[in-house]
């Protein structure tokens, strides 16, 4: 195999690079302004309430955090599982993972009621809380992936690449297990309280992370006027297909389990049949756009070597994944908690027994979009400053 | 090397000047707001210089004792600070202690430390006798019967 050279990614035209960065900066500025607006006035200016306590910012944050750990997969396949075709992509995989996590965490932190007390979250730990563990898992992820990148980029420490790669792989599995467990441990609500949430989040991270990776990789190589061979893209594409199928399988298992448990028929009916917007999001967003469409684009012989199809499939996976997390986070809260089994709530001073309404507001969305912009800006700057991308990704021996 | 020495010296002079002016400001003024109960007293619950230096620690210890362990009636209590230090404005209403020119804000503004207490705690003295029961509907207490609570329960 020919030697791989990495080089800083310079965009074909400097104006394109700087204007692209400026655009991301504008999104970030609007998002930060929105966060200030929400914190200054308090959360009543958002769509969130005492019934829907986690809103759109959490959907964005969880989506980005889950995708972050999945983005590291390509590096893991390269150095842990010994996939030579994936190895040159390892550096970018690590950079994207750090960027996505930073973006997600920014959104999460800026939506806290008291973001000024972040130091409390860093110094006071309740080890029975998966949230406290996640604080450690998320900050540890930065450190481990940072060291991992170092072992990939500095030949003098490259002998540690494999052990560090292993550590990073297990850490990322722990991280997504932790994120999924946020919902898995909630006994109160029927939509959550399922151990399958943890592995489902792991597999979701594989899928979203890879989709993010593929779409940004293609963009970067167009951006920098560099070549990618079909062989690698096909490999990535097929892997994405497997992950999308696996997410679909877990969705099926989760819903079928719930359909078996009589107590959970209500929530299943809500999501699958008569939940209005949530039902539409499930069938149209998650299943049609997020699963069937990408599977068709990936496996149909008609699009065998179409880059357009690969890019479209990745975007569809991301849109579907966003809807999936929206349904989990918001749909799961909107469905009323059953405090009194066998009873119907006639009157309540606090919205018992009714589906909670939630209308996201602009500042919430702007904060979420700023998270994505932070991720992309970090990647754009990182790729320009460090030798992240191989000069060429043409197929070997071609 | 030399230039850095000079700048260091200037810095020290500047610092000394600042300190002096600060000390003279604190030394002469009592900093109790006119019209507050504190203005009529010789000193706070501890000597003034002790309070100036340590009031935050007193309050911090007390808050944990009260919130976590339920110990009340402590020697240092934030609500008592406010009862005593809040001044009465022109309208006859108590001024919030964290308002511009009022007791807490005067120093905290000067040293640029935000008195975070008042993000949650009340900034004016509470009306006496309002500790329990209805706050708004005072007539609630008028027709008081001597029957102890819960006696007619089966």
């Amino acid at each position: 195999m020919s030697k791989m050279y990495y080089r800083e990614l310079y965009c074909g035209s400097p104006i394109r690079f700087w204007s692209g960065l400026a655009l991301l900066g504008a999104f970030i500025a609007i998002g930060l302004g929105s966060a200030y607006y929400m914190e200054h006035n308090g959360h009543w200016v958002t769509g969130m309430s005492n019934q829907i306590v986690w809103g759109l910012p959490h959907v964005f944050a969880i989506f980005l955090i889950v995708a972050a750990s999945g983005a590291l997969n390509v590096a893991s396949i390269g150095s842990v599982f010994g996939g030579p075709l994936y190895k040159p992509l390892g550096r970018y995989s690590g950079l994207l993972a750090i960027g996505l996590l930073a973006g997600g965490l920014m959104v999460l932190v800026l939506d806290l009621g008291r973001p000024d007390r972040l130091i409390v979250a860093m110094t006071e730990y309740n080890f029975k809380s998966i949230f406290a563990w996640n604080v450690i898992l998320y900050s540890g992820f930065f450190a481990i992936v940072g060291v991992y990148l170092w072992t990939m980029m500095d030949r003098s420490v490259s002998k540690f690449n494999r052990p560090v790669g292993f550590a990073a792989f297990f850490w990322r599995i722990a991280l997504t297990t932790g994120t999924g467990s946020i919902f898995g441990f909630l006994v109160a609500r029927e939509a959550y309280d399922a151990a399958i949430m943890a592995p489902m989040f792991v597999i979701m991270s594989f899928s979203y992370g890879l989709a993010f990776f593929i779409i940004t990789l293609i963009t970067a190589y167009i951006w920098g006027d560099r070549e990618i061979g079909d062989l690698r893209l096909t490999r990535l594409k097929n892997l994405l297909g497997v992950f999308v199928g696996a997410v679909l399988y877990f969705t099926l298992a989760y819903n079928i389990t719930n359909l078996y448990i009589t107590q959970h028929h209500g929530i299943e009916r809500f999501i699958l049949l008569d939940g209005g917007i949530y039902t539409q999001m499930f069938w149209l967003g998650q299943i049609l756009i997020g699963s069937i469409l990408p599977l068709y684009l990936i496996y149909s012989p008609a699009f065998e070597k179409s880059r357009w199809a690969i890019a479209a499939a990745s975007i569809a996976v991301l849109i579907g994944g966003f809807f999936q997390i929206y349904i989990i986070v918001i749909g799961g809260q909107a469905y009323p908690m059953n405090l009194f089994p066998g009873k119907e709530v006639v009157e309540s001073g606090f919205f018992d027994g009714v589906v909670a309404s939630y209308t996201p507001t602009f500042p919430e969305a702007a904060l979420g979009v700023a998270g994505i912009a932070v991720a992309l800006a970090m990647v754009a700057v990182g790729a320009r400053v460090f030798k992240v991308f191989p000069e060429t990704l043409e197929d070997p021996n071609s | 090397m030399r230039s850095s020495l000079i700048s260091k010296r200037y810095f020290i002079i500047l610092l000394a000047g600042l300190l002096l002016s600060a000390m003279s400001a604190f030394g002469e003024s009592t900093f109790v707001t006119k019209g507050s109960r504190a203005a009529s007293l010789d000193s706070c619950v501890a000597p003034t210089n002790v309070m100036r230096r340590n009031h935050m620690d007193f309050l911090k210890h007390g808050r944990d004792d009260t919130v976590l362990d339920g110990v009340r009636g402590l020697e240092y209590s934030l609500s008592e600070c406010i009862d005593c230090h809040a001044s009465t404005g022109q309208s006859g209403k108590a001024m919030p202690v964290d308002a511009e020119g009022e007791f807490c804000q005067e120093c905290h503004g000067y040293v640029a430390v935000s008195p975070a207490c008042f993000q949650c705690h009340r900034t004016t003295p509470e009306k006496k006798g309002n500790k329990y029961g209805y706050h708004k509907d005072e007539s609630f207490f008028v027709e008081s019967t001597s029957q102890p609570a819960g006696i007619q329960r089966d």
Partner: protein
Amino acid sequence: MSKKGDQPSMERRQFIGGTIAAAGAVTIAPGVILHAVADTNQRTEGASSEHRWGMVIDANKCADGCTACVDACNSEHGLTDLGRPETDAAWIRTVKLKDKQTGNISRLPVMCQHCEHPPCVDVCPTNASFKRADGVVLVDRHRCIGCRYCMMACPYKARSFIHEALSDQSVSAPRGKGCVESCTLCVHRIDEGVMQTACQEACDKDGHAAILFGDLKDPNSEISQVLKKYNSVQIRGDLELNTGVRYRNL
């Protein structure tokens, strides 16, 4: 923990009596005893695991259309109605239920159930949500970062998030933007020996007497006697949280 053949709460009552005599107390309503406010330097002994405070609520006695307990709670803790029911705080609420099968109607107040094993305490990352030695579940607002995970975890929807900046709070219930809060079981009263919550006071006052507060660990307390004599249930008893608030005739 409870001392058999002894009445731990009596010591407390005596202590309170002493305080009252010294301070010159005022009785302003049945069962409500006020100390003279000037004398607050009487250091109280604090929460003790010899007690576990709880309530028993008789759903049959909860009167249709009555909101005395809710009003009293709001007033006691300075919870203001901002006209935004979705985001306004509700420490206690009334719920009217109809049995799907039999059509039987019942009504009851719901608030923090002060679980022995509170899910909100388990999930709180910063230990801000905690349970006192005497079983009262509280939020330490000095440590709450406003993540709302406890609100996700609470099976009773007992918690509210403060959605706006506040002023003019009650001294007994400091509260501010960005923190989570819930029923404190009138902990400021308990600590000073007033053995009656604001909601019970109001309910008694209106002549319904549906709420009874007391010490679950003292076998001679009225609440223990009532719970021993009559059948009672916990809301979501299937979760085995061992709530401090029990319901009769539900």
